[in-house]
């Protein structure tokens, strides 16, 4: 049983946990990825824009879930990804798997996130914000001198 979601709405780790409950499932692993305020060529990253080709992406996620069910005996799977702008500090992706035993749950969750990144038509673009304090603010004198 897989929960697939591609949506601009916020993702909740707690909601993902709820999807993975089941009495015979001895191990569940949830991974959540969060947008970090890294430095990059856009300056400090303020957000990521996720572009998603929806129909092929949803199909790829369903295929991925079936593969994890077969390969790791996963009985509950979560594959959720945000679409559109995700600001720094927010969760962009959650994957999770519940299996009878813990080793399979870890392997399945790792497989899901690695394959999601490599095989699902989703792209991210960094969006920056201007640095709040530029390192060398143009002084009045210098501005006048060059004017």
């Amino acid at each position, binding site marked *: 049983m897989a929960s697939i979601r591609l949506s601009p709405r916020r993702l909740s780790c707690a909601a993902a946990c709820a999807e993975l409950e089941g009495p015979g499932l001895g191990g569940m692993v949830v991974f959540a990825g969060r947008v970090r305020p890294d430095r990059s060529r856009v300056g400090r990253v303020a957000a990521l824009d996720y572009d998603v080709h929806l129909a092929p992406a949803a199909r790829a996620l369903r295929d991925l879930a079936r593969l994890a069910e077969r390969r790791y005996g996963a009985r509950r799977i979560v594959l959720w990804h945000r679409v559109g702008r995700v600001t720094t500090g927010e969760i962009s992706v959650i994957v999770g798997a519940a299996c009878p035993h813990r080793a399979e749950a870890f392997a399945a969750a790792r497989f899901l996130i690695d394959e999601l990144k490599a095989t699902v*038509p989703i792209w*991210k*673009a960094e969006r920056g914000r201007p640095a709040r304090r530029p390192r060398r603010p143009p002084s009045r004198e210098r501005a006048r001198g060059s004017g």
Partner: protein
Amino acid sequence: MPPDATVRLFGPAREAAGTAALRWPVPPEGLAARDLVHALARAHPRLAPTLRVSRFLLNDELLTRLARRVRPGDEFAVHPPYGGG
């Protein structure tokens, strides 16, 4: 059936072209996907490097042969290397 195909540009291809979609005229008998890609690269030189590393979908199905013909009304999608998460 409209006389154009729709070219959808994703991720870095969209950023390079500055648009998410183009209408592209194709003859009624269609145009080989390979020729469409070459024409796109000529019309949008900034898109050319991305096109060289992309895969292509015709009506949501991955194209394994670029001899396949794109016809009016078809949707042709450009998929640069994926990078979600």
